[in-house]
């Protein structure tokens, strides 16, 4: 059984890569990693601590090129585009200073992207936070709810968002997003 083929199956395995609703595109992200970084909670979100952590990460794993997304005081998702093996994860977890614990969530939290000129109108059908660019700028993340489903929303660009969701909800969210985007079907949107 040593050679038994092992496939890493994405919950989006059967989903098309860039499904379009007029100008709205919904695309799964099937590679990369999501690590949950757990520091001791302090009761407030601390920017300097995050910068220090980012520096440490860059030093420990420069190859990963990941970024931090705030989850709560002392906790982040460390997200990047490269695939990371279990072994490599173990090394990184070992190298991180003792004050931080690391939990691999690459399989538990999956990502997709929604892009297009009317993307905010699409997301406003599920997300309560104000997506006005002046308020929720590029690079910002928020753990929130899309309809009934919890998800992290990250602004990648003016018209582009990444959504990180628990794997078990991925299928439902995928369909929900398509439903939300359906009105932009057609050439004019």
């Amino acid at each position: 059984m040593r050679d038994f083929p092992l496939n890493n199956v994405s919950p989006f395995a059967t989903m098309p890569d860039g499904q379009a609703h007029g100008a709205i595109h919904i695309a799964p992200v099937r590679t990369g990693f999501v690590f949950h970084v757990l520091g001791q909670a302090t009761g407030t979100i601390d920017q300097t601590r995050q910068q220090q952590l980012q520096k440490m990460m860059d030093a420990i794993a420069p190859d990963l090129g990941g970024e931090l997304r705030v989850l709560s005081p002392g906790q982040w998702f460390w997200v990047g585009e490269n695939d990371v093996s279990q072994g490599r994860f173990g090394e990184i977890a070992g190298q991180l200073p003792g004050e931080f614990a690391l939990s691999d969530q690459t399989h538990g939290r999956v990502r997709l992207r929604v892009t297009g000129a009317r993307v905010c109108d699409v997301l406003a059908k599920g997300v309560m936070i104000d997506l006005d660019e002046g308020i929720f700028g590029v690079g910002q993340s928020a753990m929130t709810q899309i309809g009934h489903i919890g998800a992290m929303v990250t602004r990648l660009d003016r018209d582009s968002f990444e959504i990180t969701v628990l794997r078990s909800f991925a299928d439902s969210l995928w369909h929900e997003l398509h439903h939300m985007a359906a009105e932009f079907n057609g050439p004019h949107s």
Partner: protein
Amino acid sequence: MTSFRIDGGTLIDRDDVREFTFNGERLRGFGGDTVASALLANGRQLVGRSFKYHRPRGILTAGAAEPNALLTIGRDGRRDPNTRATMAELFDGLEARSQNCWPNVDFDIGAMNGLLGPLLGAGFYYKTFMWPAAFWEKVYEPLIRKAAGLGRASYDPDPGSYEKCWAHCDVLVIGAGPAGLAAALTAGRAGARVIIADEGAQLGGGMLAEGGMIGNKPADAVLADMVGELHALPNVEVKKRTTVFGAYDDQVFAAVEQVQKHLSDAAINPDRAMERLWRIVAKQVILATGAEERPIVFGGNDRPGVMTAGAMRTYLNAFGVAPGKQVALFANNNQAYQTAMDLEARGIEVAAIIDPRKCPDIDYGGKARLIAGAMVRDTAGRKAIKSIAVRHDDGRDEMIAVDALAVSGGYSPIVHLACHRGARPVWSDEHVGFMPPENCDGMVPAGAVAGKAGIASCFVAGATAAVSVLNALGLNAAPAGLPDTQTADDIAQGTVAIWSVPSSKGKAFVDYQNDVTAGDINLAMREGYDHVELAKRYTTNGMATDQGKTSNVNAIGILAQNKGVSPGAIGTTTFRPFYTPVSFGALVGASKGFEFQPVRKSPLHGWAERNGAKFVETGLWYRSSWFPKDGETFWRDSVDREVMNVRENVGICDVSTLGKIEIFGADAAEFLNRVYCNAFLKLPVGKARYGIMLREDGLVYDDGTTSCLAENHYFMTTTTALAAGVLTHLEFCAQVLWPDLDVRLASATDQWAQMAIAGPRARDVLAKIIDDDISNDAFPFLAARDVSMFGGRLTGRLFRISFSGELAYEIAVPAGYGESVADAIMVAGKEFDIAPYGTEALGVMRIEKGHVTHAEINGTVTPADLGMGRMVSAKKDDFIGRVMNMREGLVDPMRPALVGIKPKSLADKFATGSHILKIGDEVSLANDQGYVTSMCYSPNLGHAIGLALVKGGPERYGEEVVIWNGLAGTSITGILCNPAFVDPENEKLHA
């Protein structure tokens, strides 16, 4: 029938002819018409029948307050009962029907009720229909119910889709009349994020009915300019056909937008919503909702052809519809005279103006005869008004022939939204109406809602209101430069209240829709229901679909008059959401049908599907419950086979849905020791332990295993049902109770695909894919650690734990690899006859083994009740639930405790939920000994077995009892026994 369409009509497009049917008859209207204006244009004054007396009714208003003209529009799944004809836009092919009449609206048998009028006064049903008692449900009530209700709702599914959105703004402007438009322009020009919402199909509010000039420009041109500019401002969002229907905490406003309901079937885009719910979060709010014109309460005031003066003006100017050929006006205020002027300007004869004021302070330059100090006391005509009876101030009566009557009893500011959160409107003698509450619940009122009238003063009021909210937002602003108009004036100018015409002949309606008359209100007072809220409930005034928009203030006035106090001393009834009724569809949005709640899928879902699983909903999860094979037609066939296969060979089961929590931190062990009732401090690395978690009240919350993977790193599993609850509970403990402990929690439920491999050959199977030594010595019962798999290509977490009671392991692998690993196990296990098993088989095996689940852990049991009293640590000085667990009632020896139960005659069956009685005892609740919590057919034992919570518990092993199922009408003899039916010595577990 003759057409009443005349020239003009700013809202209609005469090139856009639309056909529709009314009670089956084909009629025509224009684009821009409402159903009401189209009906009036076609000379249809009679449109429906009233609720109780089935009186002929026409169209009273031109807006949201309409009490009479409720029609059923559409058919099948697109049927909307109780639709206000005044708000429904006409589309091509629209089908409208009258309601509450049989056989038809012209000849309605129900009108007989009118003869019984006096008998059917307010609250009559409370006083009779009591004898004989059984007749209520059999005879009286069905009759009442048949008669009650208005439209008939469809049972057909609604083909339309719906959605809900959030919106954010600096300034929300509610209402787009002159005040709202001026406010939105001012705020928009200042750069604020503005949302302006209006329920109408077109912005403009009162301006739409304005036929004349504003300054030196036609009113419609002024309006077009303003609307054009608003649309052009990128920071202003204009929402037409959008009713703000509720004001909630923290400036959250609920609004519903008619996206496609006004379109013909052919024009509907199925990818778009029919209606859209908006949840608007606003920093500042301007209330520019206008004022409602009140009818006057006089005899026969409900005759078709009677209409509010403002509505008449709207039909005339905006829709080009003449209300009649010979019209009278009955009004107690100056504002309403405008209707007479406009009628005359369009060449319609105004037969008379009846004004109850002795010397109205108005300079009416028209031709109409002005009868001052007089009142209309009655009307005549069968299905439409033919004449009015006027009582002069000298007591003389005069009949005047008319075919329409405009009435105006003053104006009621539309204060609803300012009162949804409990604020009360304030009576104003000056305005003869209830004004917005003192601080207006954080909104700034502007325009008619604040007592202003005239376009000029509303412009100014709107702009000024906007400046004040902009300043509050820290924005510098100047009032928008707006067209000049006439001087400002007051909406209530010269209004003299008349709450009901004392000399009324016949029924004088206060609430048209619920058929409440002035007499009913007087009766309620006489009988002691004199508080405004009691009067409302006793008479049902204001409780119809219009919520008393046109009637409440008149009812209050009548109460006040009779008591000799000011209406302010009576007060209003409570304003509640929804301002106008809102469909379920809009409030539900996309969360309907199968999409009611999201589905959670296990990472092994695809694998289970490929293996033919039947799924079952467990909370949000879909779990594989059994795996039928060819030839198996009945679920039990599969389940029995799966169970036997595990007990004899080996099986694989998806347990990924169990909650999994990673626990890190220097104090993790101490933390676990405090949240579990049993000891956890000394759990060594590489070991798992079964734990019981109590609530602080000492009862069992959840159970599961926790493993020590490394120093300061633990892995907890919870039941599927309480996965979220346990995490939340642990977070509470960590953050609130003991923030000084270093413990960090991460949910890992979705990260891992987890499978149970159970059965005597479980080790043989796993050894084929796991590189490490998993012999009994190397990996004994309760061992737990990372293992290398597939020649080092994968690392998994292996746990030697068993729910089935067999030699068993649970292996967790990163979710994406779950399917491959499960496939590999199936291949590896082929030679051992491995078969997948589902939650049903799992359930059978755990009952056979006497293991508990939430069927037993039902929130009312202690560990001792479950036979696990010894697990409760006596040594630990503190853990959640320790003290309350020792209360007298929780250690009572007669508490129900866990036992096994089986039928005495092995062929007998029994059901979960059956109760236990002592043999020979009378069947009564007092004799209840307990109940069956779980049962199954045990293929190993060949008969039904169960678990039960029975008073006295294990003391009673061996006792014969009655297993009583009154619902099924069965009662069998059972025997109480040890719940471990299979392998009570745990030999298999340790093999």
